[in-house]
């Protein structure tokens, strides 16, 4: 039998942002035994001793005191470095475009942090993610958040039954606009706080500058697929497939885009025109698959997929290989599929799971220039 809310302890992962603040508030209003915990994953103390984590934690403290819940902090810097940041650097080194948020959810928020919450006697872990959990047909389903624009299941695609069983997403059924309104009505200290953007540990800083502190940049040539040199690149890791900005190719005509990379020869391939054929592919292979139901829906099935966050879904057919990897064939050619990013599958509003894009094909032929 389910416990009454007052006997149900819910640990809320609080970032100091408006979403997790409202998540905690809503749970408290529903009568749960709510505990707010701030996770520190990264130390960015600058030369003046200013650390955004300290500022954020001060916001967590203010909000928790307003709501009337205890608050604590926990440090996962070491785990984050080992499980997320190392992966992040490795992927860039391999010429790919990693998604550290997916990894952070898998390894830190819904693993190390979830374990910590359980060790504190928590029945559930809640976060301010825009996603929903439902128990249907004898299993936990992860559904998109009802705010289409904010849905975060893309980042949560690696969650499985064991985790969903213990997870609450109090914001899944409300829209961001309303979340701000609730925060404002309640007078929460974070009501007007700007949403964080970009990769959490980089924040507002210059991405190139940040990355160059950890990986040596090797400038090289930028050329078209037929070998025409178009200029210099600053280091392959700074570019992602389909990218337009920062190429510095002038001249008339249509804009230029990143088409691919040759890691061995340190060449960045570019092509002209948003809809250039080189940017399109028809299928991909994904690895490190994880299924919400703990297993794929079938050996072969059709569904929709997202290849990047905030993209509209594309219809695809999926074939699960012996290895557990999948082949994904697109109903229509798709632009700028990028190795390292996540491919996430949906059946309507139900997120089925996802994996990491590893290889990209056009009509069955591997696009070696993409990776």
């Amino acid at each position, binding site marked *: 039998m389910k416990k009454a809310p007052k006997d149900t*302890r819910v640990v809320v992962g609080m970032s100091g942002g408006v979403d997790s603040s409202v998540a905690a508030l809503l749970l408290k209003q529903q009568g749960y035994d709510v*505990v707010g915990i*701030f*996770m*520190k994953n990264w*130390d960015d103390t600058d030369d003046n001793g200013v*650390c955004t*984590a*300290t500022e*954020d*934690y*001060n916001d967590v403290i203010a909000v928790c005191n307003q709501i009337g819940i*205890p608050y*604590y*902090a*926990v*440090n996962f810097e070491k785990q984050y470095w080992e499980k997320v940041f190392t992966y992040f650097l490795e992927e860039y080194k391999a010429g790919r475009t990693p998604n550290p948020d997916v990894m952070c959810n898998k390894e830190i928020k819904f693993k190390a942090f979830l374990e*910590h919450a359980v*060790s*504190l*006697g928590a029945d559930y872990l809640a976060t301010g993610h825009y996603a929903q959990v439902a128990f249907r047909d004898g299993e936990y389903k992860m559904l998109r958040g009802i705010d289409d624009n904010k849905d975060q299941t893309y980042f949560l695609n690696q969650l499985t039954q064991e985790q969903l069983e213990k997870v609450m997403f109090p914001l899944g059924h409300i829209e961001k606009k309303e979340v701000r309104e609730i925060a404002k009505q309640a007078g929460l200290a974070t009501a007007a706080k700007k949403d964080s953007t970009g990769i959490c540990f980089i924040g507002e800083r210059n991405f190139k500058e940040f990355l160059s502190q950890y990986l040596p940049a090797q400038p090289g040539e930028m050329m078209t697929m037929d070998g025409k040199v178009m200029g210099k690149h600053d280091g392959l890791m700074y570019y992602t497939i389909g990218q337009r900005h920062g190429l510095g190719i002038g001249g008339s005509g249509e804009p230029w885009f990143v088409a691919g990379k040759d890691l061995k020869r340190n060449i960045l391939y570019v092509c002209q025109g948003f809809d250039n054929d080189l940017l399109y592919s028809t299928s991909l292979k994904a690895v490190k698959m994880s299924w919400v139901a703990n297993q794929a829906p079938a050996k072969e099935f059709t569904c929709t997929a997202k290849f990047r966050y905030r993209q509209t879904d594309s219809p695809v057919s999926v074939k699960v290989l012996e290895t557990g990897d999948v082949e994904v064939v697109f109903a229509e050619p798709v632009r700028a599929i990028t190795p390292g990013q996540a491919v996430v599958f949906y059946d309507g509003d139900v997120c089925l799971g996802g994996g990491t894009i590893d290889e990209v094909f056009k009509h069955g032929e591997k696009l070696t220039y993409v990776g």
Partner: protein
Amino acid sequence: MNRIYLDHAATSPMHPNVIDKMMTVMKSEFGNPSSIHAFGRQARHVLDEARVSIAASIGAERNEIIFTSGGTEADNTALIGIAEANKARGKHIITTEIEHHAILHTSQYLEKKGFEVTYLPVNNEGLISMADVKAALREDTILVSIMYGNNEVGTIQPIADIGALLKEHQAYFHTDAVQAYGLVPIDVNALHIDLLSVSAHKINGPKGIGFLYVREGVKLQPHAHGGEQERKRRAGTESVPAIAGFAEAVKIAQQTMAEKAEKYRTFKEILLARFEEGGIQYQLNGSLEASLPHVLNVSFPGTNVESLLVNLDLAGIAVSSGSACTAGSIDPSHVLVAMFGKNSERTKNSIRFSFGLNNTNEEIKQAADETVKIVSRLVDK
């Protein structure tokens, strides 16, 4: 929830008599002690009485007490004030690795200003060795600052021996007695102490007040300039209500000293006995002998301090770890690192219980049982 407060080394509740005293002073003696009129004289009278009784508590004279905003300011004043006033005689200072940050960070500041600081190590009970003190002592040493009793593990240092050693040396002897004062008898003359820091809120007094004892004749450079308060060594209108409350707290601390020593020894016995009966693994950090009565630091192998503290708090038990934990940054306690090395698990699984006047045997039993439950759960995981 029935909450149990076992974090008196962090701060302690004000005694009702202290509050009464402060209320009276706030209501009726609001004058500025430096004023020449009747209102000022009244306040000055309160201030003087407090100063006399506080001085007497350590065998000092009234003009040897400088009121400060607390222990941190007293420590800063002692170190920086001595360093600046005596740098012509040398620039070497000796302290220990297990001081409070008010001493350690001030020492680092002085290093940046050109002073040389020797940080003495401790053994695994948290004790310095007299041989190390002797070896570190140089002709140009101007100050030796060694804490009386440690705030994290309670270890009491050989203060009398150090005092005796320095009697014939030019170096002044300062001791941070913030944790020890009011719990163990201190006589600055018998112990040959030149400077001593104390804070009121650790002994049921108000926050924001403390004192630095400075032996008559010690050369000290003042850091707050302005009026002529505290014999020009610390300018600023005195916080008369806080000082009056402080004196009241000192009186209570002196009166209850023996009773506390006895009572807290029982508390330690209860805790350790119940850990034993509960079948959990534990290790005492420090010793039961050369230790402050109110501090007990225990390591629980297989646990981690973050989970321990939060679990205990959620169960209504307020304890702490030595490590300052802000925004999730856990720097392992420098005291435990000095005692056991930085790779020791003990630096990550130890908590401090610290007792106060109001604690009862019942509370201690309850806290022990709750600890056993939580430790068992964390270890089984």
